[in-house]
Structures are given as structure tokens and as C-alpha cells.
């Protein structure tokens, strides 16, 4: 890699982006920080409470539950979508009419507004009018996502797999397409097995795009709001109340600004920390492959 030219004037090119994002990000974030240290009795009168809200939060069972549910959800999502996405990408055609058909139909769920995704699955899963719910009920399964936590979880996870696995597939596919044919021919001459082709050729080539996929899927599943809100509204009980749903309930539903702000900050910092870890790993691998690669 050739070293980039040092040029401080480049800041002027970045400035417009910097200003717009700072306007949208810094001012609201400072508002949140501001609220998180204060309490109010309404009428816009605020007084300082220090770190009380953060202390409350650390001992709040509601927060712990929502946080654990969120971690569990993101964990399950990554465990299903990443391997499944790779598996499908490996089986996709490399040329011919199948390529556009696959790409277009797979990208379709990604372009549907999130609340419509929720509506689609709400309709699809209902026992009285939905294909899935009706079929399961007539097969004798006791399936009702508005009543049972397990059914609600399964519905939301299947929905998310439906919605987002394509992102992993498309990323992995892009990685696979960048492997020159010569690699496969060399492997064939060496008599490499299917498994070692995957392990030593395909997986390393997909590494970078897979990390992007994992990063994006982690961030977005950790922030999920609209789809579970439409399907279950956080219920039954609190069983599908993820962090964002809980936060919106608290901030806009109950108008508990202080606790909601404290929770926002902790929530944001957790995402930031985990994403920073992913990002660092990602750029390190990127540098290694561009230094040591062919």
C-alpha cells in the first residue's frame, strides 16, 4: 500500500459532512447527557441529581432483564444468520440467468419498511388468517404468538432471519465472487477436499466481508425496535421487550426523562464498545491482508 499524501486542507472536504452529522448527533446527545444527571417535576424545572439515575440503573431488574434479552436475541440472530448466509452463498450460481433472479429476490426483504415487515409477519403468523399460524394450528401445534412467550420469540427470530439473512448472503457472495478461478484449479490439482477448499481458500477470502456482515448484523439487531413493536408490542408480558422498546416506553410513554437518558447512554456505550472491538479487529485483518497478500 502506498502511503497517503498528508494534506490538512482535506479537512475542508470533510467539513460539510462533519457539520451536518454534528448537528444531528452532538446536540441531541448533549441533551441526553444533560437529562441523565437531572430530575424534573415538570414545568421545565430541572435540578441536579448527580449519578443517581446511573446507580438506579445498575440495580434495576427491569434494565437487567431487557439487557439480557437483548444480548440473547443478538446472539441467537448471529448464530443462525451468519452460518446460514454462508451456506446459501456457497450454493448460489456464479453465472447465468440464476444470478439476477437470486440477487433481486434475496434483496427484496431488505427494501421493505420495517413496520411493514412486522405487519407481514403479524398477518402471516396469525392463527385465524395467516398461512403460517393456520398451518401450524391445523398440524396440531399449540402456536399463538400473542399468548406464549416462546412462540413470540420464535416468530420474531424467524422474522429476523427472513428479513436479514440476505444481507449476509449478499456479502458472502460478493466475497466468493472475488476469488479467481486459478485458486480452485490449483486446489483441484492438489486434490484438496471440499472442506479444505472452504477452510483455506473461501473462508479467508470472505473474512473481511463477513466481519462487515457481523458488525452490521450485530448493530442492527441490538437496536431492533420496529418489527417486534409491531408484532408483539413487547409482549406477552415483557417477554419480547428489547432495549429499544423499553427505552421508548420509558422516554415517550412514561416521560421518565432522567432514567431514560441514563439508560440511553449506557445502551449507546455498550454498542459503541462492542462495535469498536469489531471495528479494530476488522481493520487489523484488513491491514494484514493488504500487507501480506499477493
Amino acid at each position, binding site marked *: 500500500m502506498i502511503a497517503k499524501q498528508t494534506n490538512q486542507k482535506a479537512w475542508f472536504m470533510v467539513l460539510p459532512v462533519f457539520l451536518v452529522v454534528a448537528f444531528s448527533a452532538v446536540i441531541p446527545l448533549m441533551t441526553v447527557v444533560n437529562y441523565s444527571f437531572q430530575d424534573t417535576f415538570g414545568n421545565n424545572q430541572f435540578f441536579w441529581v448527580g449519578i443517581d439515575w446511573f446507580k438506579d440503573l445498575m440495580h434495576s431488574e427491569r434494565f437487567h432483564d431487557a439487557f439480557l434479552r437483548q444480548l440473547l436475541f443478538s446472539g441467537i440472530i448471529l448464530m443462525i444468520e451468519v452460518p446460514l448466509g454462508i451456506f446459501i452463498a456457497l*450454493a448460489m450460481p456464479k453465472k447465468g440467468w440464476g444470478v439476477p433472479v437470486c440477487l433481486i429476490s434475496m434483496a427484496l426483504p431488505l427494501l421493505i419498511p420495517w413496520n411493514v415487515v412486522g405487519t407481514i409477519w403479524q398477518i402471516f403468523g396469525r392463527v385465524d388468517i395467516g*398461512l403460517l399460524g393456520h398451518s401450524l394450528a391445523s398440524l396440531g401445534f399449540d402456536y399463538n404468538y400473542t399468548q406464549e412467550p416462546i412462540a413470540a420469540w420464535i416468530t420474531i427470530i424467524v422474522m429476523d432471519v427472513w428479513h436479514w439473512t440476505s444481507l449476509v448472503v449478499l456479502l458472502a457472495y460478493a466475497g466468493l465472487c472475488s476469488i479467481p478461478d486459478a485458486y480452485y484449479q490449483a486446489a483441484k490439482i492438489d486434490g484438496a477436499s471440499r472442506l479444505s477448499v472452504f477452510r483455506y481458500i473461501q473462508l479467508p477470502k470472505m473474512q473481511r466481508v463477513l466481519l462487515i456482515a457481523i458488525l452490521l448484523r450485530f448493530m442492527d439487531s441490538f437496536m431492533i425496535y420496529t418489527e417486534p413493536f409491531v408484532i408483539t408490542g413487547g409482549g406477552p408480558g415483557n417477554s419480547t421487550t428489547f432495549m429499544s422498546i423499553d427505552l421508548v416506553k420509558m422516554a415517550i410513554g412514561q416521560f421518565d426523562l432522567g432514567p431514560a437518558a441514563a439508560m440511553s447512554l449506557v445502551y449507546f456505550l455498550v454498542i459503541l464498545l462492542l*462495535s469498536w472491538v469489531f471495528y479494530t479487529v476488522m481493520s487489523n485483518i484488513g491491514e494484514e491482508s493488504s500487507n501480506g497478500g499477493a
Partner: protein
Amino acid sequence: MRWKWLIPAIYIVFLLLPIYWLVNMSLKNNDEILSIFSLWPQNLTFDNYRVIFTDSSWYSGYINSMIYVSINVLISVTFALPAAYAFSRYSFVGDKHLFFWLLTNRMAPPAVFALPFFQLYSSIGLFDTHIAVAIAHCLFNLPLAVWILEGFMSGIPKEIDETAFVDGYSWIRFFIKIFIPNIASGIGVTAFFCFMFSWVELLLARTLTAVNAKPISAIMTRTVSASGLDWGVLAAAGVLTILPGVLVIWFVRNHIAKGFALGRV
């Protein structure tokens, strides 16, 4: 590996089945939806679509969504172009930190920003305007646009820039005449992504609008809670929100895989 094609085929069926069910429901009337369970409409009707196209409280939602999505795509791409160029070609004080800071905004949960955004845009008198939603969506779209464009631009050899400067091109002329045509597909893909994330977002768009700029997605949730669930119309509205996406995918189909890798393959 003769049966390999079955795997994507099954997956695509799994993807299309719920969408088919939505289309199916949108072509039935409510009595049929609730009384008869059938895999295709028994009495085909387009009444649900007629409701949407004749009632201004429905179709204005599509117009509002289209307006703020277009503004957002325009802002994101034009602002991100020079910034991405700077990141891909030069090193400057704080560049890595700035890049990561931009990305953190892509990671920020919209739920965190919903209430402060409401207060911010109310206080500057932009509440319930298209431009407010468009700027709010820049929070995650601008960083993404910079990220994707930077990936595409880094794939263009630096020699192109240098040759142009030696030939006496000014920076602006070089950028418009030579560089932009070179990354046209990258710009298309970026616009696609900005469209996508602005089009699908609900929480911020709903929080920042009341009447004049209310997006279609917010109108749909309101109808679910208010009018005793008109399933047919709801399904029809859903189908109509999918169509713009199909159209946009068709335009970028050749670059979509590379685009999803954010230009970094």
C-alpha cells in the same frame, strides 16, 4: 453437486411466501379474509387499492415518504462525495478518529435520539417538515455513504488523479469530468443504500412528523391501532410500500453484491 440449486431455491421460496400472503390478502375483501381460509382470492377485488389511491390521508403518506427520502439521498450523496475523496486520498489530523466517530453515528440506536430530536427540531421550527426527517436520517445515512464511497474510491488507482493534475486539470474539473464517471456505479450503490435505510426507517420519521410530512409507514401503524384493523387495506398499503424497493433494486442489480460489501471486495 447436482442438487445445489435447491438450496437458494428453497430459501427464495421462504422469502417470497410471506410476501405472497400479503399480496393475497390485499386482493380480498375483509369478509373473505376473516371467514374463508384460502390460498388465493376467491372473489378478486381491487377495492383495497382503490381506497388508498382515492383517500388523500393514505396516498399523501407515499408522497411525503418519497419527498424526504429524495432530499435525504441528495444531501447524503453530495456531501459524502468530497468527504469520501478526502478519506481515500489524504491523511490529515484526526482522520482515523473522525472516520470512527462518523461510524459511531451509524451505530447509535434511533431510540436514543427520538426524544432529543423531537425537542431540537421543535425548537428550531422544523417539526413536521420533510427537511427535518431528511436531516435526521443523515445521522446514519451520511456515515454510511462516506463509508461505501470511500471503499469504491480506494479501488481507483491514484495514478488517475496524478495524470489529470499533470495534464493541467483543476481539482474541481478533474473531480466532475474524470473521477465521478469512474465511480458512477459506486454512487449508484450509495444512493441505493441511502434510499433503502431512509425508506425503511420508522421511529425517527414518526417522531418528527404530525400531519404535513407524515410518512406512509406511520400512517399504517396509526390505522392498525385506531380503526379496528382493516386487514385488506393494510395489506394493500404494505404491498405498495414494497414496490419502490423492487424498482430501485432493478436499477442497481448488477452492482448490488459489490455494494453490499460496501465496495470492499
